């Protein structure tokens, strides 16, 4: 029996990146490869449930309090209500600190694991580079499953800014503020790279493009008009990476009729039960049926209206396909699933690239943007009505889905990854050399 190439996928510990990679891994498996997953021990189980071998990086030694996540949300909830510029100091810089610390802790065990595994290629879906991957000596492919803004260009608004594409005058101030805030951790990260033989990265950058291949999860309807065209030999745009799930039967509601609205803010958003309770109170007065993903916190809710159904997990792509409106946090995976099924998005971003996707949804007429907390009941209802009733938006979405659905992102990604694993040559992209703003 011939065993195909071993592809080690290493997504960051977030459900969006993880499920994006699951879709790609299933396509790799169908092509005869042996996809395996590298994950942090605290993020285990996700891939095994899809039938993939998992290799765990050890947890930090410190004991984890049971209240960790509640403490996290309590600490950051006020920050999530801030504008992107005000989140730089309060959320983004501390998050980069945590990311770099995790990369440092992962380095030795990751290097040892890659030496044992000897994969034919590594697929990295993350926001930070792990030197162990370069040191492993095998080709590696970068997946950019965040918004396209993660890969800078003179014509692309700054990453995490949520700034408009047509107002570059405001970009410089954001970038200066960003670079100043993340400067200390960026310095720490470059020293870490240097210790392991990697060149430093430009200001504000934590991950270079792969010299072999790079996959961008950016449907054409959202793409920016880049000043410097990305070399198609090294960069492939994907029209989404929507995975196949079992069909979803819309459950019977105790009462209510009308359009079906699916609400999910991801696992982090589910922790903010107060916000979801506020929304449910509005849903009770709106002529629609609502499916709300509340994660592990169903017991936090009472007197749930008859037109609302809560659950701890939904087969999201199948649910979105049945929905008339998808209210989400702007995660790139969620946004792509909405586009794939031609469903309008009402984006209420918390942080990170959610702001960029919310802005882009408005700019491209594929969705609406509402502040996550600063709304009245009438404003939330008006936003839902607008998204449900906008015929022009529905037409654009339908037209885009006609292009997007046949262009299977997972198949294209698998094809590119296998080409690299089976002898693709290293190109001439020098780390950190992709043209960028500033």
């Amino acid at each position, binding site marked *: 029996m011939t065993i195909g190439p071993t592809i080690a996928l290493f997504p960051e510990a977030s459900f969006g990146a993880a499920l994006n990679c699951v879709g790609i891994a299933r396509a790799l498996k169908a092509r005869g490869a042996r996809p395996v997953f590298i994950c942090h021990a605290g993020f285990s*189980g996700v891939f095994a449930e899809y*039938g993939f071998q998992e290799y765990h990086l050890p947890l930090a030694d410190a004991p984890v309090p049971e209240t960790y996540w509640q403490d996290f949300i309590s600490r950051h909830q006020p920050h999530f209500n801030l504008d992107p510029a005000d989140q730089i100091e309060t959320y983004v810089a501390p998050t980069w600190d945590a990311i770099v610390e995790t990369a440092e802790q992962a380095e030795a065990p990751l290097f040892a694991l890659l030496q044992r595994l000897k994969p034919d290629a590594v697929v990295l879906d993350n926001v930070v580079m792990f030197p162990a991957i370069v040191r492993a000596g095998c080709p590696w492919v970068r997946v950019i499953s965040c918004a396209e803004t993660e890969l800078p260009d003179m014509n692309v608004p700054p990453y995490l800014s949520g700034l408009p594409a047509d107002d570059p005058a405001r970009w410089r101030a954001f970038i200066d503020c960003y670079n100043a805030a993340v400067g200390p951790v960026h310095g720490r990260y470059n020293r870490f790279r240097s210790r392991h033989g990697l060149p430093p990265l430009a200001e504000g950058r934590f991950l270079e493009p792969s010299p072999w291949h790079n996959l961008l999860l950016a449907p054409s309807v959202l793409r920016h008009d880049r000043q410097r065209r990305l070399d198609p030999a090294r960069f492939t745009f994907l029209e989404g990476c929507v995975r196949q799930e079992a069909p979803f039967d819309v459950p019977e509601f*105790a009462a209510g009729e009308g359009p079906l609205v699916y609400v999910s803010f991801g696992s982090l958003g589910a922790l903010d039960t107060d916000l979801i309770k506020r929304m449910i109170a509005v849903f009770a007065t709106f002529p629609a049926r609502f499916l709300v993903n509340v994660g592990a916190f169903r017991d936090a809710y009472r007197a749930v209206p008859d037109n609302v159904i809560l659950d701890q997990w939904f087969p999201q792509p199948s649910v979105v396909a049945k929905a008339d409106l998808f209210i989400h946090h702007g995660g790139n995976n969620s946004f792509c699933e909405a586009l794939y099924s031609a469903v309008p998005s009402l984006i209420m971003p918390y942080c990170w690239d959610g702001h960029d996707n919310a802005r882009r949804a408005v700019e491209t007429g594929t969705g609406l943007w509402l502040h996550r907390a600063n709304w009245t009941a009438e404003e939330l209802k008006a936003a839902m009505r607008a998204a449900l009733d906008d015929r022009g938006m529905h037409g654009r979405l339908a037209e885009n889905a006609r292009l997007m659905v046949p262009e299977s992102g997972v198949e294209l990604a698998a094809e590119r990854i296998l080409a690299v694993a089976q002898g693709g040559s290293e190109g001439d992209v020098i780390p950190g050399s992709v043209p960028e703003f500033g």
Partner: protein
Amino acid sequence: MQVTGGKSALSRPRQNHLDLARRILDLARERGMGPGAHLPEQFLATQCNVSRTPVRAALKLLTEQGLVEHAADQGYRLASGVSLAGGLAEPLPDPEEAELAARIIRDRAARRLDETVTVGEVMRRYDADRRTVLKALGTLAEDGLVARAPGQSWVFANLPDSLESQSDSLDFRLILEPAALTTPGFALDRDRAAALRRAMVALLAEPDDRLDGTRFGQLDLEFHMLIARGASNRYLSEALAAHHRLRGLPGAVVRSNVVRLRQAMLEHLQILDQLESDQLAVAADLLRVHLRLSRSQRPRAANRGVPPLAIRPAPREG
């Protein structure tokens, strides 16, 4: 939990009698019985692993529904004109209070009803009279789903619809289900096993985008109920059957992705292979593996930049 209320229990069909009536119809179907076929009480009691008293109650219920006829000198027979063709579980019409009971438990699972409710609240919500509400609550009490609290209040039991309770459920099953197979005297209902195999193979033949999760849930319950019913120890059998009834309640379903659904069905078939070959110890081992693999290991929450942490019920050794 004690049955409360002390009212006319004989006048309403109990949930376990409804279940038994469905099993009798299944059995008749699997045996290829036609209209007029004799339904001996002792035979049914043996096949269903219960005493004759509940069998009589179930047959009486079927008689009331017109599916079975009774003659004093001939016992029970399938009624003329009854067709048993169809799926594994012929739906039996529920009486008014059973339907109300189902709505109550569905609404509790959906958190529309609080943990404690008063009879008045239930009457208003469902526009039902006091007698019907009390009967419905009584039906739920018999299954341990609700208990009478002081005054006019009723308090719901913990439903197996949270990550913690679902983890406890798997621990419970890891203890009892393999034991059901390895305790001497396990009797496989081979007709039911064959019918289940056909149904599971048919489900597996569906492509991913048509793999019906609801149908999977039904077959999963049927499969594990088959093991419960085959146990020789009646208390073990009853405990497992009661637990599977809880698992069948709305909200208790553990949703899984399409890959895990398919894998779980393959594991069922492997266990069936061993059961039908009388390799009970091997079947019990495979069952342990199946239950361990069925435990959701997903983290509750994760986010970029947050050290990934396993905040979830720790798996226990079964």
